[in-house]
């Protein structure tokens, strides 16, 4: 391999992983947690018998799913400081930092997708289960929290994890905000040392290995988790 210097990968690994990959994983994990919570609330709203409540949720989901992620990343990056400034009555935009801005964006965007997953999950629970909960005197929130959502999560875990893998790959788009995620860190090294081929091959390999291993794990989990009724 004359002319290529793959040694650079070893030399810069501490930076690429400790700075870049840590950022990527932090963003993926926090965004997934936030998006699942918001998505679940949206799914409950979507299934409400109140037309206004379900309409609001439906509108939100359809709107966000109709827009490219990169556009929303830009949008929020410029909008969030103004929104924070307005909420805190500061009279000027408040800088929230790239990470917070990216996190909010991913939570809001991915919630639309997690909403659809959780909606299917909630609808997969037999209606009799809900009736049995009500018949025991539990209220709506108790029925949801103790009976419907635990079963829905269990049914949907493979799909939720698959969506999380998609989110993991999507976080690389934060390079447009000049944030140093894994791809950003690899890119920094590549540009600085002129080792584009080596670093991008390496980055692709890492994304592939992590995503592939994760989706294999999900497959295995899926087989093991068939619910006993």
């Amino acid at each position, binding site marked *: 391999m004359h002319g290529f210097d793959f040694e650079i990968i070893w030399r810069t690994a501490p930076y690429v992983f400790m700075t870049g990959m840590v950022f990527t994983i932090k963003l993926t994990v926090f965004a997934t947690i936030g998006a699942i919570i918001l998505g679940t609330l949206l799914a409950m709203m979507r299934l409400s018998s109140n037309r206004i409540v379900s309409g609001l949720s439906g509108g939100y989901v359809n709107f966000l799913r109709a827009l490219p992620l990169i556009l929303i990343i830009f949008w929020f990056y410029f909008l969030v400081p103004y929104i924070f400034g307005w909420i805190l009555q500061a009279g000027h935009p408040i800088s929230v930092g790239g990470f917070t801005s990216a996190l909010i964006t991913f939570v809001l965007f991915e919630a639309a997708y997690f909403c659809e997953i959780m909606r299917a999950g909630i609808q997969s629970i*037999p209606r*009799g*289960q809900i*009736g*049995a*909960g*009500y*018949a*025991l*005197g*539990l*209220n709506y929130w*108790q029925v949801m929290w*103790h*009976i419907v959502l*635990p*079963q829905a999560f*269990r049914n949907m875990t493979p799909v939720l994890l698959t969506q999380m893998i998609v989110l993991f790959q999507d976080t690389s788009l934060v390079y447009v905000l000049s944030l140093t995620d894994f791809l950003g860190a690899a890119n920094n090294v590549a540009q600085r040392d002129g080792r584009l081929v080596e670093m991008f091959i390496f980055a692709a390999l890492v994304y592939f290995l992590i995503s592939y291993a994760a989706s294999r794990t999900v497959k295995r989990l899926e087989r093991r988790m068939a*619910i*006993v*009724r």
Partner: protein
Amino acid sequence: MIEFKNVSKWYGSFQVLTDCSTSVSKGEVVVVCGPSGSGKSTLIKTANALEPFQQGEIFIDGISVGAPSTNLPKLRSRIGMVFQHFELFPHLSVMRNLSLAQIKVLGRPEKEAMERARSLLERVGLSAHIDKYPGQLSGGQQQRVAIARALAMDPLAMLFDEPTSALDPEMVNEVLDVMVDLAKEGMTMMVVTHEMGFARKVAHRVIFMDEGKIVEDCTKDDFFGHVDQRSDRAKLFLSKILSH
């Protein structure tokens, strides 16, 4: 105890219940029977507001089920309900199935709720299965757990919605035995069932429904004893299910 006054219900333009009036007194066992689609399950489910109704009134121990001011969770917690398909919570152990609502709805301390769960499981003969999950039990065992779960709330009355019709024939009796014991102890019961043997043994009254209407509402002895005085529809029904 349970009073239905001119209850009517529609699904869209289709009327499923027409002007149903009847009552169940304290300590009384009332069996509701009739052909499928006659509205008997719907009627029993209106009693604890699992099915809404558009006309008439239902009172449980003097409290109106349909009134907007009624605290439905509280009212439901005082009425036990047993379903055709058991509806145990598959992700919770038998113990947790029995204790959850005691703790969350009645506010019982966990220890007391577990104590109550244990004694009820013993009563339905399932103490050995306390830590199992519903999926590990047979249909008959699941239905007995479901009865224990309803009893754990110390209900004023019990509603049974075809409790044995989803069971294998050999498991029907273990469930009926529990219900017979319960009736003999003086529990107020409203039971939708086709088990005429059960009706003969413990019912005080029999209600016969057809096409959403209460066609017959009489004592057990009249229902089974004086068949000639019954309506043609009830006669036909009885001749079909009693002939073998």
